[in-house]
């Protein structure tokens, strides 16, 4: 998307925010940095916005992580990292939550991941059904998604696979991890689909489809983790209820975080990059089940 051109065409505030929201959901850190470098060419009201996004990225990590973005299908973005050919790299599959984001705009979230260690697939359910019906136009359910990603990506390049989901994407991440043999599947403030307001859900939708997948699927060694902020009571309850429905899962308390979905709270504590590397990529979970930002 040519954000500058689209912003220039906006006639109303609502139009401008629509473009900005789309950019927040899609652009990589490098694309935000480029937009920021040319901020003087943006309409005046959008300059503060791109300043803010660029500052969020820089606050997380310096330098900008050079992920290269391309679309694999509707709602499916592939962000290729910078590992040298032949160097070990990981594949991170991210299931976005409410508002189709990882509780932050995409660029700052990606900036929390080291581009020289991983490629990232970001999934957005356009129908906002918490991936219960897969990804329309790409894969009708999670097993089909696993097959489709295996066809679309050079899976043999990956030394490890990792799943992460925030909010309404958390349950899907926990269900998908074992399907692709992930080392870890991490839910951040996730909740069971039975607890979600899914306004567009058809009556016949199966809110227990992830349980059925677990029952029918392979026994995998995937570590299943339901993380929540220690100081956000509603996430404590929801994450523990979710963990009760996922056999073998464990709860991870993230101390000093008081926001839904953990990610934004980690950002405010300047701990997002360290958390993603330690917990997600290194699997270094604290023995006492509590992570300190």
């Amino acid at each position, binding site marked *: 998307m040519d954000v500058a051109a689209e912003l220039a065409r906006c006639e109303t*505030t*609502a139009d401008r*925010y*629509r473009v*900005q*929201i789309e950019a*927040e959901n899609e652009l990589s850190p490098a694309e935000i940095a480029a937009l920021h470098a040319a901020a003087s060419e943006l309409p005046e009201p959008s300059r*503060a*916005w791109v300043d*803010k996004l660029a500052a969020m990225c820089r606050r997380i990590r310096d330098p900008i992580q050079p992920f290269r973005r391309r679309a694999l299908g509707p709602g499916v973005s592939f962000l290729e990292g910078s590992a040298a050919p032949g160097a070990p790299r990981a594949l991170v599959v991210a299931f976005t*939550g*409410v*508002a189709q*984001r990882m*509780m932050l*705009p995409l660029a700052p979230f990606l900036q929390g991941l080291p581009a020289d260690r991983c490629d990232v697939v970001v999934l957005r359910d356009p129908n*906002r059904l918490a991936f219960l019906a897969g990804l329309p136009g790409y894969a009708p359910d999670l097993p089909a998604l696993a097959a489709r990603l295996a066809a679309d990506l050079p899976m043999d390049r990956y030394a490890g696979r990792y799943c992460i989901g925030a*909010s*309404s994407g958390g349950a899907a991440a926990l269900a998908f991890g074992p399907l692709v043999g992930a080392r870890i599947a991490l839910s951040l403030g996730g*909740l*069971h689909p*039975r*607890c*979600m*307001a*899914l*306004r*567009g859900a058809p009556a016949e939708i199966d809110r227990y489809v992830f349980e059925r997948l677990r029952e029918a699927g392979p026994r995998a060694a995937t570590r299943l983790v339901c993380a929540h902020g220690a100081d956000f009571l*509603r996430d404590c309850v929801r994450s523990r*209820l979710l963990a*009760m*429905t996922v056999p073998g899962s464990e709860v991870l308390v993230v101390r000093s975080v008081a*926001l*839904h*979905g953990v990610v*934004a709270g980690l950002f405010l504590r300047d701990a997002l990059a360290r958390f993603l590397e330690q917990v997600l990529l290194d699997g270094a979970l604290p023995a006492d089940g509590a992570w300190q930002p």
Partner: protein
Amino acid sequence: MDHQPAPPLRDAAQLRDLVAAAVRENPVVAVSDPALLARLADPAADCSFDDLGFDSLARMELCIWMQVEAGLEVTESEVLDHPSVRSLAAHLAARG
């Protein structure tokens, strides 16, 4: 664990209170101006999201809060097309 999502609220006054709560809980923009807080608290008053300082990031957080904490799905388009506390509440009441 068999929680039914909350039934949709249709009462515009209740929904206005809920949208005002979503504004006060917003993690991106903390409203501290006493005059704005008074307008938020006054059921007869209205407050535009622009007046409240809500940028696109704050509006998305409002959508998230409404869905996760209030059990009401609100899309970004709905927040953009109904750009004040009262108009969004009225829209949600009419939408059902």
